Each structure stands twice: as C-alpha cells, then as structure tokens.
C-alpha cells in the first residue's frame, strides 16, 4: 500500500511543485501517472523514495517515509530513473545488476541466478558483460530496468520506462511490466503503453490531481487529455 496524505512540496525557494496531494494505491495495483512536462510526476516519485522531503504524510505499508526508515522503504521500492545514464554506475551491466541484491545481503549464488533469469526474460544476455560506457542509450535503459528487477522490490516505480526504446524493446518492456505481480507506478507520455499496462490512471496538472480513475475512462477522454497537453492514445484514436 502506498499513500500520500495532504503532501505539499516546493524545491528551494521556488513555487510549490506538489500542492496538497492525496491518493492511495493498493497492493498489486498498476497505476499510470500522466501529465504535461513539468507537472510534477518525477517529483512525486522522489518524494515517495525520500529523495526529497515535503510536508504532509507519505506511507508505504503503514510505515511513514522519513529519515529514520529510509532504508526499509527503499528496500521495498525499485526505481527506474528517467535518465538511465544516472542509474548505472558500476563498470559492467552484470556488476550493476549484482549491486542491489548484494547490498541487501542476498547470497552471491542467489543473486547470480536472479541476474540470469532477468536477462533471459528481457532478452538481454548479450549485454551481460558489456561495459556501461559502451552501450547505447536504449540498451542502457533496458539494463537499468534489469538492475531494478534484480532487486525484486515489492513495488516498482518507473519514470518514462519506454522513452529511447525501439519498438521491439518497448514491446518487451510492456510485456515484462504486465507480467510483474508487484505494485507498479509508471509515468509516461506514451499513453498507449499506459493503456496496455495500467488499470488505473492519475492525471496530474501543476502539482495537483485533476483526474483519478479507470485507465480506459481517462485515456478516452479527448477533451481532458488535450486540456493537459496530451492526445488520445493511438489505439483509441484509430477506433473512435
């Protein structure tokens, strides 16, 4: 369970970026966070991970997100950053994938097994021993997703997981997301992907929730989307 209770936040000396926001996400839900550039989607994720602190209460499984229990919270949440260059810091993809599990005291054999299983699932075995500074942007994105999956978190937060991916890898990511049983929060401007992977959508504008409901309802509301700098997903605009 993940909950925001009257959360507000502003970066230093700036306008509020999140305004008195409340929502609740139950275990196993797949929620799409959508909204224009600068609406506050990435900031919501940072608040949830305790990377920035705001006012109000944020709960993860009844534990409040604050300085004292950051490590408990972070163990539960896996985060795919918007910019994968900043996600990968070990020399090779393999070492990067091992980093999380080993830090959480998973045995080396167990971690090795996980890594192989995930690389198979994502069709990435060829990247295993590649150097992070020698792989393409899209490959790095796939590798970043793999590093997060290797941690087997209880909930997964993905910030723009399909940007920079070619259609083949985009499809793999979508299928992988669909197979995950964990709680998922995904931000994206790729509304077709959100349509495919999420049952619920929260639409953000200027730091406030403007709509929260079933994905098919919100994603088929042409006026609402256009008022928020978005367009109907291709799959819907063709049919309708």
């Amino acid at each position, binding site marked *: 369970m993940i909950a925001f209770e009257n959360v507000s936040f502003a970066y230093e000396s700036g306008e509020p970026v999140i305004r008195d926001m409340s929502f609740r996400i139950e275990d196993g839900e797949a929620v799409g966070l959508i909204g224009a550039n600068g609406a506050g989607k990435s900031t919501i994720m940072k608040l949830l*991970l305790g*990377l920035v602190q705001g006012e109000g209460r944020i709960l993860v499984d009844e534990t409040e997100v604050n300085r004292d229990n*950051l*490590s408990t919270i*972070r*163990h539960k*949440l896996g*985060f795919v*950053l918007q*910019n994968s*260059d*900043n*996600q990968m*810091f*070990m*020399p*090779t993809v393999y*070492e990067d994938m*091992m*980093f*999380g599990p*080993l*830090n*959480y*005291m998973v045995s*080396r054999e167990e971690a090795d097994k996980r890594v192989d299983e995930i690389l198979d699932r994502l069709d990435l075995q060829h990247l295993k021993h590649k*150097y992070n*500074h*020698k792989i393409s942007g899209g490959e790095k994105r796939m590798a970043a997703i793999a*590093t997060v999956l290797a*941690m087997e978190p209880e909930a997964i937060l993905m910030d723009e997981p399909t940007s920079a991916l070619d259609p083949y890898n985009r499809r793999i990511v979508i299928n992988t997301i669909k197979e995950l049983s964990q709680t998922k929060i995904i931000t994206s401007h790729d509304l077709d992907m959100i349509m495919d992977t999420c049952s619920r959508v929260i639409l953000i504008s200027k730091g406030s929730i403007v709509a929260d409901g079933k994905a098919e309802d919100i994603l088929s509301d042409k006026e609402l989307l256009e008022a928020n700098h978005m367009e109907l997903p291709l799959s819907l605009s063709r049919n309708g």
Partner: protein
Amino acid sequence: MNKMEKALNELGHMDELAVQESPVHAMNAGAKLLCTVIYILVVMSFNKYDLSGLIPMLLWPVFMYQMSGIPVRTCFYKLRIVLPLVMAVGLFNPIFDREIMLHIGNIGVSGGVISMLTLMLKGVLCLMASFLLVATTPFDNICAALRRVHFPAMLVTLLLLTYRYVGVMTEELAVMTDAYHLRAPGQKGIHVSAWGSFLGQLLLRSMDRAQELYSSMLLRGYHQHFHYAPIKPFKFSDAVFLILSIAFFAIVKYVNVSELMGMFLVR
C-alpha cells in the same frame, strides 16, 4: 568522437584494465594497497640529493608492470596530462641551488640539478605505483580494502564519489562541447566570452548528475559497506609478496645499491 569522449573512453578503459587477469590482479586488494602506500612513503623519504639511491626503486614498479601484463607505456600515456605538472615541481631548483656537487668528466653538476632530477623521479615513481594499483584493482575493491582497515566510511564514500564524479563531469563536458561547436562552426576551442557560463553550466549539470547517481546508489542499498565488491582473500602468496616487497624497499633504502653494484663492476 571529440577530445572529451576520448578522455571518457580512457576512463572506461581503466575499468577494463582493472578486471583483466594476471598474478597482480589476483592479489588481495589490501596487500596491494598497503604495499603501494609503503612504496610511496619510502620513495618520498629519500634525501633530495640521493638520486643514485633512488634509482633502484624503479625496479619494483617495472617488475610489477611486467607481472600485471600492463605495458608501462599505458601508464605514461594515460598520465600524460599530469606527468608534466609533477615534473615541473623541481624546475626551479637549479636556479636557486648552484653549488657544484659532482663532476661528470669535467662538467660540474650543481646540487639544484640533482635535486630537480630526484624530485622528478620521485613524482614519476609515485605516479607509476598509484596507477598500477588503480589499473589492477577495481575502484570499489580499493574502497572495500580501505574500509577493511577502518579508514573512515565518509572519506571512502567521498573517494568513490570523486572517482565517479570525474567520469560524469567528462561526459557532461563532452556533450556541452559538442553542443557548443554545433552552434559555433569553425571556431577553435570555446570563445573567452562564453567561459563563465560554460563553466557554471558544467558544474551545475555535473553536480545534478552526481547527485542522481548517488541517489541511485542509495536506492539500491549502498550503505558504505562493500559487500558487493568482495576482496580476494589474503593468501599465502600475498604474504610472500608483501614481505619480499618490503624487504626490497628496505634494502634499497638502507643499502646503497648503486655503490654496491659499482664496487662489483670495479672489481
């Protein structure tokens, strides 16, 4: 590929060197670290006129490079930017210290020249030894070894982040230089008028990225322990290596090897 990207590739290349296989790579990181530190201390401890005493110290790094399979020229190539700076340290000695200390044939050599050469050699030797350590040990393992000897966790983290920061900064520099030249074709370098904003941007951007990188480490459980970078166990061979190396340093330091060899040759 611009200059910066090349520099970046070289940084990456360091990581690649560090995971090769050789007797030196296989050594315990702590043993290597300790040995390197002692080596540097011994080199620094030589008297500033003791050039002939210092020269035999060259044998250790040369031998180690041989063992590690890393050509000495790789070191000099990678450090080509720092090397002149280190060498420049003693440049003024010959001007201030003109007392003649030694005659080669009938040319007098002043103390300044000798102390300059000694300083240069010291610099080069220390660089060679440090480079060898970094090139044969993944950086995270060096950090793990430092933690093992109870080096303060904060400092080790700082060291690790600095190492990563250099990479991030080079990357940003590469991107920004490209972006600049695309909009200022035919210009060589970056115009003076843009230096201020360029530098400011570079710092801000690389700081933001370094911050995110660090967050990413924290999010994946980094807590200043290095379980993820296990140090190779301290083996019997490591002990032998350590003892032999230290014995060698002691001999070079306290026995005048050059003189000894000279005596043999004279006989």
